[in-house]
């Protein structure tokens, strides 16, 4: 009993940080509708800046002053990001901005590395709060008690600001209908900036205040990202009390998980999230999201048309050029081209569900990695020949997507995205922790292609055939009646229902189909590398594909392919530099700002304006 009480206290103390950071994210999302991936980076900056300040400001006063200053400083950094990176892209279709925030993550990672070095820093202990007190005989750190005591005040302060002040009223009004707020004479640009300041400052505070417990390191940004998203989603996007309840729920369960069921820790919060979302699709205290209610629908889609002769010619020339690579290029080039084609197929499969289906998945890596693992497991345990394994990969991934899709279909928008993320994480941790079967962290090795395909050249041709074939097949389906039904479901589900389309079923099947196509990419991947590791199932993998689809241009399949090829090539080129992240981050941000319709979408617009591309033709 005493132990349980002490564990609850530890959970509550952990919840403090989680709540501070998550409340900031929730505020920002609630008002700006931006899914700010860089929020974890703000948290990390708060920790590092707080640490530096604590080195120069002595004593108890200095400690708490440093925490506050770190919050303010990160708030200012948030404002800079908002003004420079996000303002130019507010008008872009919903969720597009997350790509820009991903660029910000990369930039901040390198800036932090430059400023504070690669070493983890140990947080200073809070003066006056070192040591422990005994509660029912169990040791509880004094600092934990301080954190537990502070959080309700922060919650109350935020609650007061949001519910009782004019600014809070405006913020809540803008959460619901920002255009109307503008029509009533409120400059919403500054409202947004203000909210960004507050939200970022909360992240900075969270980072600084947890220093005595966790210190600071360069992995903090990604490490907290998943948890705070989970907290915000469980609580209900935009709800502060919801975020608090969710933070406590997750943290306390986590403490118990660590003690009684250690293998559960990686998935616990995702299981909780999945359960909550299945019961309450908008989180515990969230309100229903209505598509387009925030005036962010974007330009209407143009009808898609078959490619014109010029475009067809270009594709044929490109394919011919690809065929010649092994003849004239180095084997290194063949390997790179293999990687690129596989990644393009993966991205194209995500595009199918995201661009045509309008369903943003944050967990598409589950099907890429899933397909890869299916193939690897079949080869390792059943001595399955490569040809059969390559067939089973999409079947396995498709089945997985079929099941996951069935659960996720009940949700929409960001909640849908988060649930797919949760399932991808579940799969990842399953693979990661089931050592005996999947090799866990060490992955699975020695999965080579059949004899007749050994060598980078012949495998390249296999990849070329299956990869390009897969992409063309995706395109073919997009132009089939099923593809039309899918787009109809995206654009106007009510009208689509009226014409007899079962929109949910169409979307569900499309999700499974996209998963299967990602599975082909995964199967190809595993034989090209000869091995597979859980990293292929990670969030980062899903985000890679997501970024590529957005950067290339959501509205065109060629966008996913062009984006995939560009990113994979770019990564190959610049990861040789020491500070490649900042380079890639800045490139991403610049592309997002200059080409808000993606590379292909914008290129087409420019082409139309210059008269190079006929309007009807396009680069579909």
């Amino acid at each position, binding site marked *: 009993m005493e132990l349980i009480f002490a564990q609850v206290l530890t959970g509550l103390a952990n919840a403090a940080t989680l709540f501070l950071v998550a409340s900031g994210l929730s505020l920002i999302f609630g008002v700006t509708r931006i899914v700010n991936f860089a929020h974890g980076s703000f948290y990390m900056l708060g920790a590092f800046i707080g640490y530096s300040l604590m080195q120069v400001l002595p004593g108890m006063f200095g400690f708490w002053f440093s925490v506050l200053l770190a919050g303010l400083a990160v708030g200012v950094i948030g404002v800079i990001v908002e003004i420079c990176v996000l303002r130019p892209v507010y008008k872009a279709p919903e969720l597009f901005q997350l790509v820009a925030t991903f660029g910000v993550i990369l930039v901040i990672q390198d800036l932090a590395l430059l400023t504070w070095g690669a070493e983890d820093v140990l947080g200073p202990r809070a003066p006056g709060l070192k040591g422990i007190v005994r509660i029912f005989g169990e040791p509880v750190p004094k600092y934990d008690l301080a954190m537990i005591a502070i959080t309700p005040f922060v919650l109350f302060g935020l609650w007061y600001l949001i519910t009782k002040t*004019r600014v809070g*009223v*405006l913020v*809540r*009004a803008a*959460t*619901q*209908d920002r*255009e*109307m*707020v*503008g*029509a*009533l*004479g*409120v*400059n*919403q640009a500054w409202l947004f900036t203000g909210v960004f300041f507050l939200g970022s400052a909360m992240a900075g505070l969270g980072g600084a205040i947890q220093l005595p417990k966790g210190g600071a390191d360069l992995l903090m940004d990604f490490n907290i990202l998943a948890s705070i998203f989970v907290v915000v989603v469980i609580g209900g996007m935009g709800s502060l009390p919801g975020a608090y309840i969710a933070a406590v729920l997750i943290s306390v369960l986590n403490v118990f998980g660590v003690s009684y069921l250690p293998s559960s820790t990686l998935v616990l919060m995702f299981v909780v999230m999945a359960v909550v979302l299945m019961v309450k699709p908008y989180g515990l205290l969230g*309100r229903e999201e209505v598509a387009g209610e925030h005036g962010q629908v974007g*330009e*209407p889609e143009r009808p898609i048309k078959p490619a014109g002769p010029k475009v067809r010619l270009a594709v044929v020339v490109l394919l011919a050029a690809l065929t010649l690579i092994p003849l004239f290029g180095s084997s290194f080039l063949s390997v790179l081209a293999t990687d690129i084609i596989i990644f393009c197929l993966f991205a194209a499969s995500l595009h199918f569900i995201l661009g045509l289906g309008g369903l943003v998945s944050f967990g598409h890596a589950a099907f890429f990695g899933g397909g890869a693992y299916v193939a690897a497991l079949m080869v390792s345990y059943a001595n399955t020949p490569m040809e059969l394994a390559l067939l089973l990969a999409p079947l396995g991934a498709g089945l997985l997507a079929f099941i996951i899709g069935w659960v996720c279909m009940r949700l929409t928008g960001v909640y849908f995205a988060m649930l797919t993320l949760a399932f991808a994480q579940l799969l990842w941790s399953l693979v990661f922790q089931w050592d005996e079967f999947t090799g866990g962290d060490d992955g699975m090795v020695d999965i080579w292609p059949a004899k007749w395909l050994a060598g980078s050249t012949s495998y390249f041709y296999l990849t070329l055939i299956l990869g390009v074939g897969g992409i063309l097949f995706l395109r073919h389906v997009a132009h089939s009646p099923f593809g039309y039904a899918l787009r109809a479901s995206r654009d106007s589900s009510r009208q689509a229902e009226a014409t007899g389309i079962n929109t949910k079923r169409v979307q569900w099947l499309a999700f499974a189909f996209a998963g299967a196509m990602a599975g082909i990419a995964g199967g190809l991947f595993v034989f090209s590398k000869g091995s597979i590791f859980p990293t292929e199932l990670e969030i980062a993998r899903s985000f890679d594909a997501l970024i590529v689809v957005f950067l290339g241009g959501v509205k065109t399949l060629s966008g996913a392919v062009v984006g995939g090829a560009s990113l994979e090539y770019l990564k190959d080129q610049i990861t040789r530099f020491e500070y490649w992240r900042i380079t890639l981050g800045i490139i991403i941000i610049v592309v997002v700002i200059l080409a808000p319709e993606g590379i292909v979408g914008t290129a087409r617009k420019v082409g139309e304006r210059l008269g190079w591309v006929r309007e009807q033709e396009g680069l579909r």
Partner: protein
Amino acid sequence: MTNINMLKLNAVNSFYGKAHILNDISFSIEAGEVVSLLGRNGAGKTTTMKSIMQLVKPKDGTVHFLGKDITASPTHRVAKMGLGYVPEERRIFTDLTILENLEVGKQPARDGLIEWTIDILFDLFPNLKERRNNRGKELSGGEQQMLTIARTLMGNPKLLLLDEPSEGIAPVIVEQMAETILKLKKEGLPVLISEQNLHFARIVADRAIIIESGSRKFDGSFEELEAQPEIRDAYLSV
């Protein structure tokens, strides 16, 4: 300040994407005047309102308010200058209480005009007073309509744009609405009111502007309109 129109549209052309909706719309409103903008469903009344508020940016032509060119100004600045907009879909903040909705609309008083306070507005709309702590979503259609008008009046507008205020509310409330508009008129507040209902427009307005397919077809008094029944029959549903 003599001889400057309150509001003046000069050959305004507006688009949604590539669809050309407004064709060279021109008209003006003088101080103290209540003008009705008439036309069938889809004629372009709402688009005209939005083009004035710069919620839709005209591709061509200008909008002047109190002698200043407001074309392409941000919407919030237009509202700050004293253009009060009551949208057709009402768009009250359903999660906010009546009092909070009014707070969002609040702007400082303007010299030489009456200052709309919550008390005055509650006198004008007694229903709202009783339900002041209710959330927007708990209100009836008529109450929501009154709330949008009250909310906009909180901004102490110099000119009020009312987009189809009688649409979709009970006849009793429509009568109340007409009385309200006449009261506003008595306060000297100029109003541009869009309507499909000629009868309602005639009660409250001094003048009629008729548009059809985004073009202006008529601009004059109701007597002049009476004299040309073919115009009424061609452009208004009776």
